[in-house]
Structure formats: structure tokens, C-alpha cells
């Protein structure tokens, strides 16, 4: 067992995010969007 916490040696790793969204414009002035953020995170326990 190390004396330091694991984060000490792995201070930074790359992060990957997947966001998806869809947009609907019923009129020229109104916009309705639906976004889902960090979809890959749903699989990452």
C-alpha cells in the first residue's frame, strides 16, 4: 500500500465527453432545445 493517495501519481488524465442535442424552431422567434450531457458518463460507474 502506498503512502500517498492514488491521485498523487495520476494527477491528471484526459477526459472525454459526449453531448448530444436537438433543436426545434416552431417559429422564427421561439427555439426549443433538448440537450443531453456527458452521455458516456452514464456508462461510467
Amino acid at each position, binding site marked *: 500500500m502506498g503512502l500517498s493517495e492514488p491521485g498523487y501519481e495520476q494527477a491528471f488524465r484526459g477526459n472525454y465527453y459526449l453531448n448530444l*442535442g436537438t433543436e426545434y424552431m416552431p417559429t422564427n422567434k421561439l*427555439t426549443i*432545445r433538448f440537450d443531453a*450531457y456527458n452521455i458516456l458518463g452514464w456508462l461510467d460507474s
Partner: protein
Amino acid sequence: MSTSAQKKLARVALLSTMMASILAPVALAQQSTAADSLDASVFDLSLEELLQLEIIPSTTLTVTDLRHSPAASTIISQEMLVSSGARSLDEALEIYVPNMQFMRNHHGAAAMGVRTILSSTNNKVLLLVNGRVINHRLQQGAFSERDLPTLGDIHHIDVIRGPGSAVYGPGAVAGVINIITQSHQTFTGLDTTIRLGGRWMVRCRYIGALTERKIKPPITTTL
């Protein structure tokens, strides 16, 4: 693909790049000409004329063309902010700006850096709103504005991916982020956004312009 189609495609691509760089960010060399005439005339230019078009990009103080701009820059327009679904300035920068890093921590805003030049006190990046420095001098550095949830008042964001102290003053070691807000020249009316959710988000945006919506380059320079 035929040669003429390739030329047409190249012209459209180049025109798009030039328009993004010209319409969004900066004062034009020919400020005396109205913005309206610019919108119409730039589409009539040939490839050679587009390449020779002189502007004042955010990376320099002198009139130059885009090919001789002394630093790499990214321009994020209001349309890009909306279409990206970004919930904060940090997210917008993370989505659009190449070579920009965010290192999250437990005690404050994520450390922000460009091209791996990054400090835990966020003092390597100069953050400006309409040309005025808003970095905290004492502790947090580039901190304000980064986590605000509404981006609707932003006209565009100029990001210089590299040192910029020669133009913007001390503190621009890794890069410069210049937020240009909407003004009476660029937007008149009502812009309302309602957001609901966290990981899932439903967003309704209503733009009711009291007068005709104007999307024009700001007349004053960004510096």
C-alpha cells in the same frame, strides 16, 4: 468532383472562414463604410480579393490580412454558443477552442490553460469583457464570468491561443479571452431563455425583437 465544383467549394469554404473572422470580431479597416454595405459586398468578392482583404484582427493592433495575423485565434459567435448547448463559458471554450485545457480541482474554478501553460491560480490567461481586464489580482485570476449560466448577452468571444501581452498588457502568458457583449448596435429587443434540468436539459428561447434584429460587426475595436 469537377474542377469548377472544387473551385466553388473552395470559394464557399474560404468565404465562410472570412465571414466568421470579419463579421464577428473586429473593427474593419474601412470603418467609414457602413456595416450594411459590408454584408452585401463581401459576397461579391473573388477569391483573390478575399485573400487581400485587410482587417484588424484581435491579435494585432495594425491593419493586416488574415494570412499575416501574428497569432492563432478562435472566434466563438453567439450562434455557435447557442447551437453548442454550452451551459457556461468554460463549456463553450472547452468545446470550441483547440489546445485549451481545464484541470478540475476541489477548491475552486478549474485551472484553465492554453497549450499546457496552466496555473492553479489561473493567472496565465487574461480574461476581458469588452476589452477590460477582469482577472482577480489577488487569488483566483481568471475567475469571474466563467460559470455564469446565461450566455445570451454575448455577441462573440475572441480567444487568442498564445501569448498576447504585446497587445493586451501584462498577464496574457498563455492566452487571451475577450468577451464582447451585445450592444445597441448588435441587438435590440427581448431575449429570454428558460432552462430546466441538469444532465438532461430542456431549453426554450424566445427572441422578440422590439425593432428589427441587427447583427452587425461592432464599430469600435475590440481592444
